[in-house]
């Protein structure tokens, strides 16, 4: 059974205008998206900026209200829950944020940051609390004395690990990682990615991994969903997407990635031109008259594409 099952999720932001600033239109940030996550896997959500990745992630964790659709977590529809009722699920779903600078309160010591969820869910004596915090911190590779430091005393990668430690304290089942490394330098990026993989194994975590960097997605994810303007255009295993892309948008995305081998320069350029041509020619085949993708259709048990 899927740990998380998203069904026809829609999130619209109102656009106000007109004389009385009434809602005149909506931004369809997420427009009918369905996918599911199995326990222990990493599901990657990729797409261009503004295609609705963040909105999807934040809706799942309850930071944004869904306009329609269901978010079934272990069978419970989270979108129907009231604030109170949602509370216990917070333990199970946690989030890693993009910016390790703004996601840690600069005025709080590491101890307070990491202990925050403990204080909300468990009643621990200060001593127990500190022990537990030190334990998780050491798990993420930070020394025990760091608990009395402030976030600005850490490097970006270390900060991201503090964020991860905070998400881990409650032993969550699902972690939503929204571009967890895009604010980090290449070398630090590797650190965090390696680490995320390690703890996944250790804790049996499930990741919803959001990124626009296909290299990282390929490195991290088992299955991938490609998003375009609030919809999924293709979904499949990592291999399928990278070696056998079906949707023209996927192909375009893949061809745009620079090739890290200078000798491949010419070929890459040619490929790009070719895809671009196809994109222009067959645009209407892949998108409806509003420029929106069609619903997904399975072409293999694991691979689905949005074609009419």
């Amino acid at each position, binding site marked *: 059974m899927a740990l998380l099952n998203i069904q026809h999720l829609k999130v619209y932001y109102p656009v106000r205008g007109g004389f009385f600033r009434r809602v005149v239109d909506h931004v369809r940030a997420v427009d009918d998206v369905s996918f599911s996550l199995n326990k222990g896997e990493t599901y990657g959500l990729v797409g261009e900026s503004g295609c609705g990745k963040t909105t999807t992630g934040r809706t799942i964790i309850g930071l944004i209200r869904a306009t329609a659709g269901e978010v079934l977590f272990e069978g419970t529809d989270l979108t129907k829950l009231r604030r109170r009722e949602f509370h216990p699920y917070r333990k199970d779903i946690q989030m890693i944020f993009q910016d390790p600078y703004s996601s840690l309160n600069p005025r*709080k010591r590491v101890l307070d940051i990491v202990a925050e969820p403990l204080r909300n869910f468990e009643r621990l004596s200060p001593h127990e609390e500190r022990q537990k915090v030190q334990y998780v911190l050491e798990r993420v590779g930070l020394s025990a004395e760091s608990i009395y430091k402030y976030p600005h005393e850490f490097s970006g990668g270390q900060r991201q690990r503090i964020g991860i430690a905070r998400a881990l304290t409650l032993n969550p089942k699902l972690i939503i990682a929204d571009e967890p490394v895009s604010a980090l330098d290449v070398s630090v990026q590797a650190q965090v990615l390696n680490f995320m993989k390690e703890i996944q194994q250790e804790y049996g975590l499930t990741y919803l991994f959001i990124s626009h960097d296909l290299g990282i997605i390929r490195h991290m994810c088992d299955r991938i969903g490609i998003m375009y303007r609030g919809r999924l255009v293709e979904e499949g295993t990592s291999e399928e997407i990278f070696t056998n892309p079906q949707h023209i948008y996927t192909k375009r995305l893949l061809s745009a990635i620079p090739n890290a081998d200078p000798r491949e320069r010419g070929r890459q350029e040619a490929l790009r031109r070719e895809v671009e041509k196809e994109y222009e020619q067959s645009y209407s085949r892949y998108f409806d008259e509003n420029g929106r993708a069609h619903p997904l259709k399975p072409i293999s048990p694991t691979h689905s594409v949005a074609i009419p």
Partner: protein
Amino acid sequence: MKAEISGPTPVGANIEKSPSAFSIMWREVVRDRLALGSLIILGILLAIVYGVSLFLDQEEIVKVDFLSIYSPPSAEHWLGTDYGGRDVFGQLIIGARNSFTIGLAITLITGLIGLTIGLIAGYFGGWIDNVIMRVIDFILVLPFLMLVIVFVAIVPKYNVLTFILIMSAFLWTGKARLIRAKTLAERELDYVSASKTLGTPDWKIIIFQILPNLSSIIIVNLTLNLAGNIGIESGLTYLGFGLPESTPSLGTLVSYATNPDVLQNKWWVWLPASLLILVMMLCINFIGQALKRAADARQRLG
């Protein structure tokens, strides 16, 4: 990697190393010679004012003595007397105490109101914000001076307390707007989202997460405001709506200068008070500027 739980580190050792908002500000003030000088001068001034005023009898000072009207500075009256033969020096000290207390009280009250309302409006947004902002917009278009005058005419008992309350009723809006804007910005930061996803209740997020991050802005704003609020009653006194004379204030002394004779020939009545206001405002301002730099990492001296 093997986890080894090491014993908890003693708390004290590391704590000073972590600069809080206050220690950053303190450092900045100490580093800026002007600000440090201002702080020292202000401290001495306040110590004198509050200290000496303990030994002064307000009743005695505001006692009318027709035998020594407008006497120039002398050994008996260090700063001469005013038209009621009252000792200007005593009035200056008590007036400074009153004015500073008034300024401080207004600053704190408006700060508290502005903070509460600004935080609520900024954090919750939506209709709450809308309503609050409309109210603030409304208060901002009110002709402040005119309404204060009307209020002063209405209140049955007009004393320091009512004065503070009337002024505060109008002056909180600016702070509320500032705090709201900052809260709005702060609310968008991920640490707030993080707290939400960690199940922290809203009120805790507001007080324990957002508020500390606004502390430097608040301190700076309050400091600079304090400078403005010290002389706040002088204008009203000039118009005849200031504090009663039995409550000496710097504003009262300054506004004696509207009598052209005093302005031209009796400098001891109004000049010391004017200078005192100036010095206090400048000192607070300089400290405020240093704090402002401390709050803005880009401008920090080091």
